[in-house]
């Protein structure tokens, strides 16, 4: 088979999760103004401090301009065309029976049987359809240990002191265009608090979905790990097929106090658009963690296969002494997808360490960029960073780009950066073929080998899902 036909085959790989739910939405009219923000806040029965937080962000946002520096290209977004609030009508559910059967069906199609997950895998799932949390499982079990795992709206109502104390402390309201927009209009998300000395006994997991047509989704996640605690959080995403581009601007804040450890894993599979680059999600996310006190550790692991455009830099502020930041990433782009992703490691404390391992895979006509910043402040005596950025190209119509920014204000710092670019060679495919392995399987073997270092960071059940996703995203793409 020639390269051309093989490359064309990618495009016949239709998005498997392309379906929509018919749920009557309780939604705001399109557009963005103070009235809409008051509407969202009122809908959610928020206290005044929350409304003020939103309004302050909105007023600041109006003075800001959309950033242009990323290596991505997309038509101008009309923020007045977007619906900022949408909620499924059935609410206040006590059991699964009360959940809209349409929603349950959607979960089944996605392979997230809540009940089964509850029973078999021991993963607590806080499922988000559009903007409202539909069901939270395992809450009671976690409650016994004092762990709080709930929707963000619920946290505002029930744990206002914690939300007030940490919200906006890692990603300030005026941080960047999309984060500020999120501050103004966020609808829901997850909140986690792990008390002192508690090791969270299970992987916490959230599946996000974007569902209502023309609905922008603005999640807000806040995870606080108190002294000596540990939590592993998984975020998995799929979205149904849509013709119009959908904006997604989430904010995730992580706070790790003394000796605490947070492991945050993401598998992202949002609709990437069709073979002609039509449709797909715009994913403009701000994810940042702070190792606030000594010996804290934050680890980001991400597998990004979806979205038409990804603009995402999960970062760690290493404030406490001896703190550790890690970033492990696999980003796959195919067809007309564009990804500009990477990380920032800001070393402030003494003897802080960071590790960056980024694996970019580009196929089709896609563009894949790694953008990373390592900054060592004057105070960060004896700090070190290791970065490794590898790119794999499939076919000859795609691009891979690496933009590392390194700044060191202290001579005791050790910074290492390694980068490679390789191409899945015809020779490798031929070698596999000659051993009886067909081309599809050969590509997935080679890709798995390339990404192994990152995938092994994921919890077991997630690693399997991630591997499947990589296979789906790259089926038929050979160079």
């Amino acid at each position, binding site marked *: 088979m*020639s390269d051309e036909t093989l490359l064309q085959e990618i495009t016949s790989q239709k998005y498997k999760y392309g379906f929509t739910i018919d749920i009557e939405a309780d939604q705001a009219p399109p557009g963005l103004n103070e009235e809409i923000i008051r509407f969202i806040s009122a809908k959610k029965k928020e206290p005044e401090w929350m409304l003020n937080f939103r309004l302050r962000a909105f007023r600041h946002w109006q003075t800001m301009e959309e950033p242009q520096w990323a290596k991505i290209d997309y038509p101008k977004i009309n923020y007045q065309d977007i619906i900022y609030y949408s909620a499924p009508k059935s609410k206040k559910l006590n059991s699964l029976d009360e959940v809209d059967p349409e929603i349950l069906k959607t979960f089944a199609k996605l392979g997230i049987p809540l009940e089964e997950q509850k029973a078999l895998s021991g993963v607590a799932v806080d499922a988000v359809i559009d903007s409202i949390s539909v069901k939270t499982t395992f809450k009671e079990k976690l409650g016994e240990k004092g762990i709080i795992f709930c929707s963000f709206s619920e946290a505002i109502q029930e744990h206002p002191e914690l939300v007030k104390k940490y919200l906006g402390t890692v990603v300030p309201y005026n941080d960047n265009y999309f984060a500020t927009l999120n501050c103004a209009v966020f609808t829901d998300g997850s909140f986690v608090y792990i008390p002192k000395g508690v090791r969270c006994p299970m992987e916490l997991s959230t599946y996000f979905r974007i569902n209502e047509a023309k609905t922008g989704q603005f999640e807000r996640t806040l995870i606080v790990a108190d002294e000596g605690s540990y939590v592993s959080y998984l975020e998995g995403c799929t979205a149904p097929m849509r013709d119009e581009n959908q904006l997604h601007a989430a904010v995730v804040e992580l706070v790790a106090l003394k000796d605490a450890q947070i492991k945050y894993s993401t598998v992202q599979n949002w609709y990437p658009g069709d073979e002609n680059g039509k449709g797909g999600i715009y994913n403009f996310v701000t994810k940042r963690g702070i190792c606030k006190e000594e010996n804290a550790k934050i680890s980001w692991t991400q597998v990004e296969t979806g979205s038409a455009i990804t603009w995402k830099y999960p970062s760690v502020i290493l404030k406490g002494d001896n703190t550790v930041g890690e970033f492990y990433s696999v980003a796959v782009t195919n067809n007309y997808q564009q990804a500009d992703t990477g990380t920032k490691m800001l070393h402030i404390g003494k003897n802080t360490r960071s590790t960056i391992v980024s694996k970019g895979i580009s196929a089709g006509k896609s563009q894949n960029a790694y953008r990373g910043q390592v900054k060592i402040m004057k105070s960060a005596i004896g700090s070190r960073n290791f970065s490794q950025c590898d790119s794999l190209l499939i076919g000859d119509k795609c691009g891979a780009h690496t933009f590392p920014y390194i700044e060191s204000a202290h001579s005791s710092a050790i910074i290492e950066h390694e980068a490679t670019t390789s191409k899945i060679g015809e020779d490798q495919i*031929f070698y596999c*073929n*000659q051993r009886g392995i067909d081309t599809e399987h050969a590509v997935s073997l080679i890709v798995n080998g*390339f990404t192994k270092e990152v995938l092994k960071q994921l919890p077991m059940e997630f690693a399997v899902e991630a591997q499947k996703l990589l296979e789906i995203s790259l089926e038929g793409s050979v160079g």
Partner: protein
Amino acid sequence: MLTIKNLHAEIDGKKILKGLNLQINPGEVHAIMGPNGAGKSTLASVLAGKEAYEVTEGSVDFDGKDLLAMSTDVRACEGLFLAFQYPVEIPGVSMTTFLKASVDAVRKYKNLPELSAKAFLQYMREKQQMVEITKELTNRAVNEGFSGGEKKRNEVFQMAMLDPKLAVLDETDSGLDIDALRVVANGVNQLKNENNAFVVITHYQRLLDYIVPDFVHVLYDGKIVKSGPKSLALELEEKGYDWIKEETIA
């Protein structure tokens, strides 16, 4: 087992094979020798089904089937094995994973169930001993960082794992020291039986001291111009290829 008739093949419009004929029966070892550029490696690549080569004329029958109509992976599943002259590195994929995929693919083709992990490891250990491959090597990524000798031994190891009907060894002896040569030859000799056959492509007759061929063919300018018993190899070693050229022209 393999019948090649009037095979013509070219790459980028350049004619390499120009009417090659060869008959191989089960239980036979054939050596193919010839000067550089005669088409030895092209023959190996064409048999394995490398895309860059275009067959313009002729036929290849493999156990009653049209070999040229099959894709590379199907040829492998049908029992054709090529030991590469330059084995390819696949970073991050362990030999064990690779071989499991390979053995399972062939079994699937034959409608056999996949081997369990345990049965597979057991099978692999047996074959490892046969070709004196260390466990350490199978834990490493496919050919990555292997020495020249290790790569060639690894080819013979894979051959042992797949137990092919017909194995083509493309200059497996090049770059091998005498010990590695002995290990490679031992592997082949142990695998040899009345049901399979080997094509040993080589530049030197040295390997043929260890793997004794039933027939030696001289490939020159895309054709087999002379065939004979093992003694032909010695003759070539002694006289070089020039007399063949002269004979062919005359």
